[in-house]
């Protein structure tokens, strides 16, 4: 293979390739990653092939460090456990791994997000008389609360980037202290259980990060979009003072890995 570490040019990659590459960059070598199937799986596998060979992937259904030779479409799949270091149950993944403090990075999704990284995967409208109901938390709230770093992969729409989400499923940087409901910083609520929180949001248009106060800001804009485009697709007052440039496209090497190693069957990459 002569694929190089040069960046591919517009037209030479698809949006999903850029998302996978951007997400893969969030994986550091040695990270223990809690992930779901789909894009997160592409990202972690790409990272393992490329710059993070010692990173490990845990799926919430019970498998640890599997090395699928056929991409799974469910985290409960036998494919996830293939050549794994361990295959157990959810008590192991949620308590023996996540609550125990092993998880460095979580990849998550959501229907709505606010500027503190609070995410809603539960309901649109009033919880007690919903307009639309989604899946509920699943592991989203757990992973966002206990992983050292979480990265959200979302669709960029004004109605999804909200001043206040309809329901905080997954706790970000400023959250509510129950049962009273007063707002507080995550550190104050988690005390000795504090590990970290959201560090990035990757969408089809941009990459966002969180400042020292836990407030979201725009970091990079994907090729083909402007800062203005992003602002038009965010409901809250977005901090754009720290934009660092354009999101790096995938390299030829990454594209080669994605299409020839990570998903040669085209399960997710069409």
């Amino acid at each position, binding site marked *: 293979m002569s694929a190089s570490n040069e960046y591919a040019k517009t037209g030479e990659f698809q949006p999903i390739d850029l998302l996978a590459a951007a997400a893969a960059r969030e994986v550091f070598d040695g990270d223990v990653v809690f992930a779901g199937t789909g894009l997160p799986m592409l990202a972690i596998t790409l990272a393992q092939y490329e710059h993070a060979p010692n990173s490990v992937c845990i799926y919430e259904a*019970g498998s640890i460090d599997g090395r699928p030779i056929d991409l799974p479409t469910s985290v409960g799949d036998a494919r996830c456990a293939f050549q794994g270091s361990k295959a157990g149950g959810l008590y192991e993944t949620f308590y023996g791994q996540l609550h125990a403090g092993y998880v460095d990075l979580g990849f998550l999704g959501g229907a709505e997000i606010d500027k503190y990284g609070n995410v809603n995967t539960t309901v649109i409208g009033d919880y007690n008389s919903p307009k639309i109901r989604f899946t509920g938390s*699943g*592991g989203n709230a757990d992973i966002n609360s206990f992983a050292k770093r979480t990265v959200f992969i979302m669709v960029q729409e004004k109605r999804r980037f909200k001043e206040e989400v309809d329901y905080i499923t997954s706790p970000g940087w400023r959250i509510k202290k129950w049962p009273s409901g007063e707002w507080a910083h995550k550190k104050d609520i988690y005390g000795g259980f504090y590990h970290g929180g959201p560090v990035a949001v990757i969408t089809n248009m941009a990459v966002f990060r969180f400042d020292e106060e836990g407030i979201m800001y725009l970091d990079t804009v994907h090729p083909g979009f402007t800062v203005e485009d992003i602002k038009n697709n965010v409901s809250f007052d977005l901090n754009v003072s720290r934009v660092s440039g354009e999101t790096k496209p995938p390299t030829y090497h990454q594209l080669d890995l994605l299409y020839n190693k990570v998903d040669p069957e085209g399960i997710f990459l069409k």
Partner: protein
Amino acid sequence: MGKINKITLKEAAGLINDGDLLAFSGFTIWRRPVALCYEIIRQGKKDLHLFEVQGGFHSDMLIGAGCVKIWEGSFMGQELLGKVGVNLSRKQVAGEIITDDFSHGHAVGRIQAGAINVPFFPTALAMGSDILNPEYDGLARAGLRDGSNPKIASKKYEIVKDPFFDMGELLLMPAVKPDISIVYAPMVGNEGTVRVLSQSYNDSDVIKASDKIIVICEEIVPDSYLRQDPTKNLASGYEIDYVVECPWSAHPTGSQSYYDCDADFLRDFNAKTRTQEGFDQWAQEWIFGVNSQEEYLEKLGVARLEKLRASVALGYSTRVKRGTR
């Protein structure tokens, strides 16, 4: 030398009483006791209270069929094959079902506590989430936390301070002790030893936490085979009450080393059951229109089943359509 209590699908469904608190084996679309859920629907069970670490095809279907009054859990969906449980979602929007939401980790802790018979499990997962918002306590809003039902905790959770190491506040989540659990396992021994063949999910906890346990299995095998490696078994015979032998009983969900998930079947279900009329038609075709598991398998046909059958080498099918191919 224990002996198993073998019963039929119909007898098994007959053991469930209206209003029972039920839990299931499996994970989203894996190792769900589907054949028994079909039979529960045929027998018209009502007012069931489901506790699910996470739901899937089997429970979204029970809900669509009107068997369920209360759903407690952390997630309802079929992962990439159906991002939302369309039947639960429809009933939630219509106000036709009582819901109580938890995080996945909360639910795991709750069934673990039930399994070891402690009243609560301590956890700091998902603090700060609206899951803990007292206004959103579905069971309390329905007046069900008054102590009249011994299966429902008097509170959704409790907050306590660490008295030992000053780590701060954490949650106590109440145990769950189902009246009945319905467990699909690929193999049960002739003395009742239970084995699953990949990730164990919460299957052991569900068995231990429940008052009565029905195991529906792919095949009954010699216990001596399972006892060659006791580290691989999930449960002993005295932990379960009834066994139903019923091949392909998890279909359309998957069973590692036996068959894969039937993605087309699941997608078709999700597409067709968005409305109640759609569900009723679908149920007419797949539940009420077939009288037995044998008829159901004939209807699916050999070609479909053979495509789903797992490779003996890999434990999953290499022929099934996945993703875009």
